[in-house]
């Protein structure tokens, strides 16, 4: 793997193979976008739907697209640091549902903004719990967060009942209704959050150590990095952003139900990986993740605009995901290298 990875990481290096050179030119043009197959996919999809549907590239639909992209995008941005450090969090969908229900349930008693804070704190605590269990006991994060996915969903039902509940204060919905040109308030929050997480990964000690841990945990440990702290912090960030998704869902829909967020973890993981983050850890960018979330949203939205039967949409999403990754592997690293 090292040879292939090194090649694609250094687009300028000379090679004798013409095919290799062509590959690197392809990569080189896209190097700016952070090694992600999501950018070409996003551009292709936008071009395709612009040509095929007159309703796609309209002011209204683009604004709509941005709003739709927020939910999966924010979950995926939160997951990105966790993935880069070599762990997985499957509980994010359940955390979003829990936060949404908590917000709506406590809002009449303590007011809207304290309730938002409570929801975010709940997400933070669940994230911390995930990280601490994984790190203190040295368990595999997939198993722990798979169990937590069930556990948190169960708590949501047991604590808040199984009905859809509405807040008594709709200030949050009004806030999201505000428009700054194309951008609604939740889109602005999403962009801000993405920028903060991207900056954290690029320029803070924590971010750089996150890459180091994902690349080679033992080596990072031997170099004096406090591995566990960084991983727990990433889980905490991920949990908080998942709760923020719950808050956004309440704001967008004006209600909360205990099934909110079910299955979102899979879409978010698809976005993270399509964005070029390796499941094994050590590489990935927020920019790629955002592009991938955008591509997934454009795909679903565009297919709807083309009047394709909604039942075909999931087939198309699955096939596009696998095809994109296959093409990316064939074009960039060649079939010989391992992941």
């Amino acid at each position, binding site marked *: 793997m090292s040879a292939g990875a090194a090649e694609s990481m250094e687009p300028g290096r000379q090679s004798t193979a013409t095919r290799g050179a062509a590959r690197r030119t392809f990569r080189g043009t896209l190097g700016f976008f952070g090694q992600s197959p999501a950018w070409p996919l996003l551009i292709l999809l936008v071009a395709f739907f612009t040509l095929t549907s007159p309703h796609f590239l309209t002011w209204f639909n683009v604004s709509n697209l941005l709003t739709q992209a927020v939910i999966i995008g924010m979950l995926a941005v939160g997951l990105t640091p966790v993935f880069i450090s070599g762990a997985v969090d499957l509980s994010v969908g359940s955390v979003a549902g829990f936060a949404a229900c908590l917000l709506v349930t406590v809002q009449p008693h303590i007011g809207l903004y304290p309730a938002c804070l409570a929801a975010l704190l709940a997400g933070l605590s669940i994230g911390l719990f995930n990280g601490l269990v994984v790190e203190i006991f040295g368990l595999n994060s997939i198993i722990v967060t798979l169990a937590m996915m069930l556990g948190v969903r169960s708590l949501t039902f047991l604590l808040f009942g199984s009905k859809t509940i509405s807040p008594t204060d709709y200030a949050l919905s009004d806030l999201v209704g505000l428009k700054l040109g194309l951008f609604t308030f939740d889109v602005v929050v999403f962009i801000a959050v993405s920028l903060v997480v991207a900056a954290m990964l690029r320029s803070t000690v924590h971010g750089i150590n996150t890459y180091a841990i994902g690349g080679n945990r033992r080596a990072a440990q031997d170099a004096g990095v406090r591995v566990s702290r960084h991983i727990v912090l990433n889980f905490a960030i991920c949990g908080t952003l998942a709760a923020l998704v719950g808050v956004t869902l309440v704001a967008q829909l004006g209600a909360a139900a205990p099934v909110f967020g079910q299955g979102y973890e899979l879409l978010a993981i698809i976005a993270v990986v399509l964005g070029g983050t390796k499941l094994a850890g050590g590489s990935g960018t927020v920019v790629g993740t955002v592009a991938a979330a955008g591509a997934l949203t454009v795909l679903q939205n565009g297919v709807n605009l083309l009047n394709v039967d909604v039942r075909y949409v999931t087939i198309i*999403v699955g096939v596009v995901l*696998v095809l994109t990754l296959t093409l990316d592997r064939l074009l960039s690293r060649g079939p010989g290298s391992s992941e």
Partner: protein
Amino acid sequence: MRPSEGAAKKLGGHRVAMSADLMLLPRRYPVFVLLIVLLLAASLITPAVLSPENIITAIRQYAVIGIMALGVTFVVIGGRVDVSIGSLLSVLVVVIISLHDKVGAILAVCAGVSIAAVVGTINGFLVAYLRLNSLIVTLGMLTALQGVANVASAGILNRVMDPEASWFKVFGRSFFLGVPVSVWIFGGFALLCALALGKTNFGRSLRAVGGNETGSVFSSINARWTIFITFLIASLLTAMAAIVFASYAMAAPYNSGTGLEMTVLASIFLGGTSIGGGVGGIGRTVIGVIVLAFLANGMILVGMPIQAQWLVSCIIIIAAVLLDTFARRGTLLA
């Protein structure tokens, strides 16, 4: 070989090793101990749990999950994962049931098995030969197959018109020597899989590939082919599970397998098959399946709401993994 086994052998003689192995049972299979504790606790609350009828009912309800888990165990030992099996089950059940009355049971089953073989081949090719990440490939497959099941069901609940008239009912509805045929199938395949894993070249190669892929390649093991085969096995055993499910239900909701992949993975991890590859076994998975079966059954018997059952499952899974890690490492903390 584990150090404990080596120590037992050194004490000299087969008999010593046997008794030492018995003593080591809680250390090697902590989840087995958990099962016994759970059963005793449940039977204190509701004595009906330990009646023979209930034991058979409990396992019968988990036969489908058990058959799928056997196949995925190979994939997990190879260091990969297959989450597409739940959606694959949905597709196969829809195909088998909707074709049953049109072309007959045999052709319907053949169609189902062929589809499973195609899906397994695609998964296996992408993971083993194109070196794509298995979680993502099978996640994509899960998404696509969910749609396929929905489209294939044509928006209606397909059902077999006269279930009792078809010989096809034998897989899910009949009994042999007082035990449901589906449980026999689960047991039979468990035995076959255990032999394949323990006694064949394929099984030994698979452990080597899962334990250290580069090392296995240097030992001239065809790692790609080995991984490829595991995905084929997982899909084909899912076809077997779909046959049992279809024969039992004789109807095909388009979402019959949704979420089953999580239960399957939970039962495999519960048994102690490690997600990193190389470590694990069929016996472990069978124990994991039985624990989950009794857990679900016991919780229903004591009248627990379904959402509370999830919470208990969450706690049991984490507890089981903790126990297993403790048994392996000798210390609880990392």
